[in-house]
């Protein structure tokens, strides 16, 4: 990894990370379901310093028409970062990175959504990164999953996501921006907790075969923690004692 800040202490002698976390601890995650009026489903997630909005539209007519499939509905995902979301201004047009992330998030959600009963329609998922702080694709996937559920799209399972990685020779859960820049490996994972399926998996950085397995297992622990928060977000909107109409 091309980190220039070699002087950053990623892990101190007590095993505490630069932001005060233990190696197996995620950042604070809060999710709120149903935050937008116009979208059919929506969610807002704060994952550490990440602030991401997810909006879902559909099933609805497909434009352009040739994209429609007579056998099933289609899922479309756009992951996009605002120009002000990162340190140096990001050009507003979708970058190659954003196009790739849109694709991997779509492929992480596809195993969960059941669109066979909505032929010739599209479900559009829009993910807007208002502020980025490392691990945006996982946080965006977490929000997308809640927003799809909020939109009432039939799903086989939730998809929860969290990264694991390696910094200062230790395996760490939920890699933050600093650890991503100066660390040794970053492995985002997306997971369907009830079906036991890993639907998003990427890696930047070097791991031994043994670390590879342990890193996935550590990441799955984070995913399961996020899953509880996702469920709570939906519970809060749909089952809380106060009147929600």
């Amino acid at each position: 990894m091309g980190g220039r800040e070699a002087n950053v202490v990623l892990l101190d002698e007590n095993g505490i990370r630069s932001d005060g976390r233990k190696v197996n601890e995620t950042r604070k995650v809060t999710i709120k379901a149903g935050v937008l009026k116009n979208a059919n489903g929506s969610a807002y997630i704060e994952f550490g310093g990440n602030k991401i909005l997810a909006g879902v539209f559909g099933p609805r007519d497909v434009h352009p028409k040739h994209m429609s499939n007579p056998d099933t509905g289609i899922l479309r995902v756009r992951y996009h970062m605002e120009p002000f979301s990162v340190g140096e201004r990001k050009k507003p047009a979708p970058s190659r990175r954003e196009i790739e992330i849109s694709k991997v998030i779509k492929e992480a959600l596809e195993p969960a959504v059941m669109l066979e009963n909505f032929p010739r329609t599209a479900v559009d998922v829009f993910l807007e990164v208002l502020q980025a702080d490392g691990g945006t694709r996982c946080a965006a996937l977490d929000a997308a999953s809640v927003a799809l559920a909020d939109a009432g799209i039939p799903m086989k399972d939730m998809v929860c996501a969290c990264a694991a990685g390696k910094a200062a020779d230790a395996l760490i859960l939920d890699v933050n921006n600093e650890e991503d820049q100066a660390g040794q490996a970053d492995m985002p994972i997306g997971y369907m907790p009830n079906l036991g399926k890993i639907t998003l998996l990427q890696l930047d950085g070097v791991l031994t075969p043994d670390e590879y397995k342990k890193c996935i297992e550590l990441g799955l622990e984070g995913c399961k923690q996020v899953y509880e928060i996702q469920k709570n977000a939906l519970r809060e909107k749909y089952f809380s004692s106060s009147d929600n109409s």
Partner: protein
Amino acid sequence: MTDISIIDKLKRSKILDLLQEGKRIDDRALDEPRPLVIDIGVIPHANGSARARLGDTEIVAGIKVQPDRPFPDMGEKGIFMCTAEILPLAHPSAETGPPQPDVIELARVVDRGIRESGMIDLSQMVLEKDKSVIGLFADSVVTDHDGNLFDTCSYAAVAAILTSKIPKWEIKDDAPVLVEDQESDTPITTIPISVTMGRIGEFIIVDPNLDEWECLDARITITTNSDGNIVALQKGGFDGFSLEQLVKCSELSISVGKKIRDVIKEATGVSK
């Protein structure tokens, strides 16, 4: 590949039937990649080049080396960049126009495997710190598409880089000036090898051909370095993997990758 025709459904059931008997549609073993043929130096105008043929998939990679300005926060490192393109003559479905997401993913996965392995020692490619560095551009074009572009492209680019030479530049009056007839080997630290595996039903197959590719449930590309460590991953496709399947894939990527690395070492004459 989005239109699921009746032919594709029939093909999938045929492929799945065969797998149940432990066979593949082209008679390979499940963990057997197609034969790899690497030709080097196919483009004399490039600073390094290779043609990789994996079965009937063919990709030509050319290296161009030229002075460039460093990235703002990377003044002590040279520049490395990978691109990929599916030429319209490669397949009837290939179209001209702006790159589609699958082609962008192809280039980024190949780039990531090479970059994250630290294959090229970019710190040796600096002419003047923060001002002028050497850029190495690995551009690959698909000339024939029979599936698994990820690995074919990666092998072509790696072989081209391994055999590439870096011309000499000197800084004169704040600008790099080419020194004629002097070049050096590209500084290589390791040989990254990607291995792409697909899952159809419960079966994991190595190096899917195009018929198999079109009916995969999910795929994963794992890149390993010469030490047998894992340096990059990319999962794709519209379904997932279990943890056990991912562990099996990592073992396959190491054992198959070792054999492929030997083929590339032999073809390029580089051993690292």
